[in-house]
């Protein structure tokens, strides 16, 4: 058995408790250990990415055989998500080390637990285990969300916790419904059981499956359950908001995994169950997100609504449920995670330097590092709005191309192209108000407590160069993601690896 498979969960799980103790003694050592953990995670997940080429692999915990034991399953999709998580976590941690991690207690320990939950959710092959990893990542995210304290942040934090607790309750009810009909919690086993469900029980099964869509929709900020996101992300500490860029992708990953594997082409009466709900909801999310970008009064709000918009784009492509559209969705997902994280970090840098003007989109005098921030914002905004030459444009192009042969081509083209205009206007307005018009004002804002550390600039630079790398290497990345989607749309590979490891069927 290949023990590397469980390392992305075990490593942060061991580091977390160590960092709780170490954080009280020596914060420099804690920072180094936390960063070393994240760098090691990159190495491990890149190694797993290479192993995933030979088909889905499994890791049976305590060597219990599926479907009775709990399994971890690694395929190309989970490996890609692991690499994305590790890279984002390392870069954001660099940013946090400039000072955010000292504004409250136990930042690094919570950070590691958060990574443990995210990695677990990407690796698990079992529903109830997925629920447990969701809870782990949520509990850690509650702590990170209110890191640093403050009345507004705590108020937003309480709302965030309440919404997610209701989501967890729905998750349990959905899992219960599915189990009561199929008698299994293993995803691969479920894929075999779903077509055999008798017509009497079909309604129960579908209600359960669609409740799960709602739960994953809460995570992925799908309209109408997106309302928690803008306030949470805008109030969260900058490194947390940037790391949360991957949390919405956990929802998208789960939707992709479940509704292709168990409710896909082979599901009989429940085939492509999610499509008719997901597609309209995703297109409304896309529209609402970019209308929000246009209407935002603060840069933090603008970044949050652009996350809703980009999730709408990703989910629209996922909802087409074809391998080419899924490959496009995955490419856009990689891009939008990096772009969203960069926007949140830039928002914080601007907020720090504008004194009492904070990140409000109002005209204020010139502030420190204005030109450098303007240039970085320009690049991030081009990426997020989907203008050429960066990866956002390529991602949207791929999505449009993949939508052409489907019956939904007209709707998708209309939604993606019309909202692109809204996004561009929104970002142009924000950029010119914040950076350009400030030169016409008298005086200069000298904000106090601006960090002189170089780390925030390194972090933002790395994220932006990640976007550039994704653009330059688009051919290779897209080829790999096409293979990933191909693997995903052959559920038999996954099912055989989990249930019939010795061959058979």
């Amino acid at each position: 058995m290949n023990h590397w498979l469980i390392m992305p969960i075990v490593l942060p799980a061991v580091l977390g408790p160590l960092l709780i103790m170490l954080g009280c003694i020596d914060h420099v050592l804690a920072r180094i250990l936390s960063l070393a953990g994240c760098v090691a995670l990159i190495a491990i997940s890149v190694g797993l990415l290479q192993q995933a080429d030979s088909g889905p692999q499994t890791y049976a915990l305590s060597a219990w055989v599926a479907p009775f034991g709990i399994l971890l399953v690694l395929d190309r999709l989970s490996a890609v998500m692991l690499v994305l998580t590790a890279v984002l976590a390392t870069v954001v941690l660099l940013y946090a080390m400039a000072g955010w991690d000292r504004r409250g207690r136990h930042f690094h320990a919570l950070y590691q637990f958060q990574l443990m939950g995210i990695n677990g959710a990407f690796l698990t092959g079992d529903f109830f285990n997925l629920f447990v990893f969701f809870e782990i990542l949520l509990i850690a995210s509650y702590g990170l969300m209110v890191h640093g304290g403050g009345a507004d942040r705590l108020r937003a934090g309480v709302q965030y916790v309440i919404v997610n607790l209701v989501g967890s309750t729905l998750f349990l009810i959905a899992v219960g419904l599915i189990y009561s009909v199929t008698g299994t919690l293993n995803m691969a086993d479920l894929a075999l059981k779903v077509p055999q469900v008798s017509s009497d029980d079909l309604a129960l099964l579908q209600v359960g499956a669609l409740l799960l869509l709602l739960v994953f929709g809460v995570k992925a900020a799908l309209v109408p359950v997106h309302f928690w996101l803008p306030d949470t992300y805008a109030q969260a500490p900058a490194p947390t908001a940037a790391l949360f860029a991957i949390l919405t992708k956990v929802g998208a990953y789960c939707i992709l995994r479940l509704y292709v594997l168990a409710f896909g082409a082979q599901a009989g009466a429940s085939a492509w169950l999610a499509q008719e709900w997901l597609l309209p909801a995703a297109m409304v999310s896309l529209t609402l997100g970019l209308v929000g970008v246009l209407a935002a009064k603060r840069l933090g709000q603008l970044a949050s609504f652009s996350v809703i918009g980009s999730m709408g784009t990703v989910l629209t492509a996922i909802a087409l449920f074809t391998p080419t559209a899924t490959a496009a969705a995955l490419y856009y997902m990689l891009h939008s995670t990096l772009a969203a994280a960069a926007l949140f970090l830039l928002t914080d840098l601007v907020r720090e330097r504008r004194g009492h003007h904070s990140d409000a989109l109002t005209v204020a005098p010139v502030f420190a590092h204005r030109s450098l921030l303007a240039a970085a914002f320009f690049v991030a905004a081009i990426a997020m709005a989907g203008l050429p030459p960066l990866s956002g444009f390529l991602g949207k192009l791929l999505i449009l191309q993949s939508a052409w042969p489907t019956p939904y081509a007209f709707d998708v083209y209309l939604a993606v192209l019309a909202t692109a205009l809204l996004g561009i206007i929104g970002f142009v307005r924000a950029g010119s108000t914040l950076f350009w018009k400030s030169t016409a004002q008298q005086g200069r804002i000298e904000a106090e407590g601006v960090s002189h550390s170089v780390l925030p600039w390194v972090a933002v630079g790395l994220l932006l160069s990640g976007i550039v790398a994704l653009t330059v290497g688009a051919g290779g990345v897209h080829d790999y993601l096409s293979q990933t989607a191909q693997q995903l749309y052959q559920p038999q590979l996954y099912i055989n690896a989990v249930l019939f490891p010795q061959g058979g069927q």
Partner: protein
Amino acid sequence: MEALVASAVGVLTAAGIYLLLRGRTFPVVLGLALLSYATNIFLFAIGRLKINQAPILSDTALGYTDPLPQALVLTAIVISFAMTAVIVVMSLRSYLESGSDHVDGAQQNKEEA
């Protein structure tokens, strides 16, 4: 017994949702607790309702009940218990920091205006 369990789940859920929609944090926390009780009973019932049946293999057992839902309920109880503790602490901190126990901070805004 089916009617009793089903109506218990229904009443708990209804009361939970009503409390969840209230404006202050205390009823909301109670609502979340009621919802999690409803979920626990529901989870317990997904293995079908059986009385006096063994959950684990034995030579003398005449029939069996599904042990898995019972294990799931245990996990769910532990997690929901911990979550209730977290939300209580966060609501208290939020109340102490802002002076308002409204979930959306409505009262506080009214005072400022």
